[in-house]
């Protein structure tokens, strides 16, 4: 993804970015070189602006309200009690690598050589290193959590990041390598309770026959922002299920980008984003098929209340070499107030002629007949709306990795907790 070249212009966000870069210590540690490259890129790159098509509905101007400094260490997270069936890794920015024995059998940390070789490889497939949120992450991040998965891992893993109420920018980066026929369930939880920017970049490489079930639970704060970029590459016969659910971020931009290297793989995307107040949530997804017989099943759901704004842009790229691709994309949005706004855009670029691709988008209010039916059975309007809202969210939330249930996603996302 290449940013459109812009006339030399300096926005408040560019100035904020310069301030942030000035506050950083000199590049150091394992990622010194990568940091230096990222900083140089970021210094030259104009910050996203609504004149760019890709950012048309996603205004990052409010990021300048956040203090331009890096958050060094994360506080203890506000997390549910640890479940004995799940391996939890709690991550602070400057923490050293976790002890190897904290990982379940089948999962190990990537060694230095592999990290240097593999880091950034998946991002390059979609030119994402030139993408502002990724460059920002690269400029800041000093630790990568690199995990290698071999064989079937029975024990789900959860990674917990809580920026808490700290002011500044938190950057996290993750690299996953799933060996042939490896399989894992991984839940990533991001939380914030103050004025901070959470920058997340995840790369995942799935070898032949591998299976990744990844969940991203993002519980935000009205003064916080989340920029997450999730790049996945799939060899044939692999399967990835990405499920994300977010709410309450002042600004949230989520960018899952999947590349089926030779087609023949299975990709499933499920997302739910909820906005109210003046919040903005934007999902820009990209799925590229580079060979035959790949499949995609994508469902994006949004609930917009108050003055909230929800954006979905779902790009699916089916070039000539991707014959017999099967792709289904559906965007369903609920508009709960007169002032909320939904922008949804399925974008299928299909050149191959022997494919089965469908897409659809619906925007609706809660169904009056359903509400009346519930009311006619004694259920008050507030509870009836809540039941219908839960039902709307359920098919995304029920596909989260099993570890998610301890986090009570339904109650938290619908403010019932």
């Amino acid at each position, binding site marked *: 993804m290449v940013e459109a070249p812009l006339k030399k212009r300096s926005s408040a966000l560019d100035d904020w970015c310069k301030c942030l870069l000035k506050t950083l210590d000199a590049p150091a540690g394992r990622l010194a070189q990568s940091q230096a490259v990222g900083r140089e890129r970021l210094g030259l790159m104009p910050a996203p602006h609504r004149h760019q098509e890709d950012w048309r509905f996603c205004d990052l101007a409010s990021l300048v309200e956040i203090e331009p400094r890096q958050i060094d260490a994360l506080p203890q997270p506000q997390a549910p009690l640890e479940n004995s069936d799940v391996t939890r890794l709690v991550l602070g920015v400057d923490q050293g690598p976790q002890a190897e024995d904290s990982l379940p059998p089948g999962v190990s940390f990537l060694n230095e050589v592999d990290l240097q070789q593999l880091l950034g490889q998946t991002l390059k497939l979609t030119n994402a290193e030139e993408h502002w949120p990724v460059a920002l992450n690269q400029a800041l991040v000093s630790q990568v959590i690199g995990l290698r998965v071999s064989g079937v891992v029975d024990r789900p893993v959860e990674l917990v990041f809580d920026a808490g109420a700290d002011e500044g920018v938190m950057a996290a980066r993750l690299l996953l390598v799933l060996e042939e026929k490896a399989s894992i369930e991984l839940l990533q939880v991001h939380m914030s309770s103050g004025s901070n920017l959470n920058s997340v970049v995840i790369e995942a490489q799935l070898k032949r026959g591998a299976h990744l079930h990844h969940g991203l639970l993002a519980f935000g704060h009205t003064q916080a922002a989340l920029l997450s970029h999730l790049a996945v590459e799939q060899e044939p016969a692999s399967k990835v299920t990405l499920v994300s659910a977010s709410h309450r971020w002042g600004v949230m931009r989520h960018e899952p980008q999947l590349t089926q290297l030779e087609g023949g793989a299975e990709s499933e995307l499920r997302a739910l984003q909820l906005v109210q107040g003046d919040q903005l949530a934007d999902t820009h997804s990209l799925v590229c098929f580079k060979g035959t017989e790949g499949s995609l099943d994508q469902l994006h759901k949004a609930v917009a209340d108050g003055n909230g704004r929800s954006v979905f842009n779902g790009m699916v790229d089916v070039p000539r070499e991707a014959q017999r691709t099967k792709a289904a994309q559906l965007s369903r949005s609920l508009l709960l107030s007169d002032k909320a706004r939904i922008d949804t855009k399925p974008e299928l670029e299909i050149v191959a002629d022997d494919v089965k691709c469908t897409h659809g988008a619906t925007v609706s209010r809660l169904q*009056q*007949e*359903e509400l*009346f*039916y*519930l*009311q*006619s*059975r*004694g*259920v*008050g*309007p507030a*509870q*009836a709306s809540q*039941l*219908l809202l*839960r*039902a*709307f969210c*359920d*098919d995304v939330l029920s596909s989260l990795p099993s570890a998610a249930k301890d986090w009570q996603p339904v109650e938290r996302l619908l403010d019932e907790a």
Partner: protein
Amino acid sequence: MIRSEAPVLIDIRDLHARVEDQLILSGVNLTIRAGEIHALMGRNGSGKSTLSKVLAGHPAYQVTKGSVRYMGEDLLALDPEQRARIGVFLGFQYPVEIPGVSNLEFLRVSTNARRLQQGHEELDTFAFEDLVRERLGIVQMDPAFLERSVNEGFSGGEKKRNEILQMALLEPVVAILDETDSGLDIDALRIVASGVNQLANADNTTLLITHYQRLLDLIKPDYVHVMDAGRIVRSGGKDLALELEQHGYEWLDRDVANQELA
């Protein structure tokens, strides 16, 4: 069961109602006492379903004139959920499918709303499961339906049985069943009718909206009313339904016209 001394449960006077700009009810009068079973017949579009929806409080219908008293209380002043909680039940002609809402959860929430109103304790999930399993017998329903979403993917007959199951759980005082017999095969019709008969007692009442005598063979009405153009134009005993079945509505039109001339 007709008892002239039985308390009046519902008393409809000169009821006029419109949906959007169309007047659909133009002066309905009907008094129903405890223990009685009433059947309401009439052509499509005569206002039967509208009457049932107005009584249940559907927001699309606007009452422009008249009154409805439910056990002496002004029913029209209440919200739909309040009407349900105090004992008014509408069995829908087309029960609504609600994907994602579990039927069991829905039944429990609504049963508890009614119980609270009656001064009973709410039932927890275990106590409720016991109750619902017992009531399932009334409509011979498979417990598997409890695990599914409300009415989603149910056949026509299953939906109607689910309505009667709700009636069995809510134990309404006034049950209005809007074409509960439509879309039912013979066996399902028998089961539904038997459910309604089991639930009828001296303290409640049922208003059956139907087109067909076959339902009235199974649920014997004390009164039969015929609606036309938004009013009840004829009331009688169960023989009226038989006459209609034999002669059709045109017979009634002529009869009513003759009466008006006289």
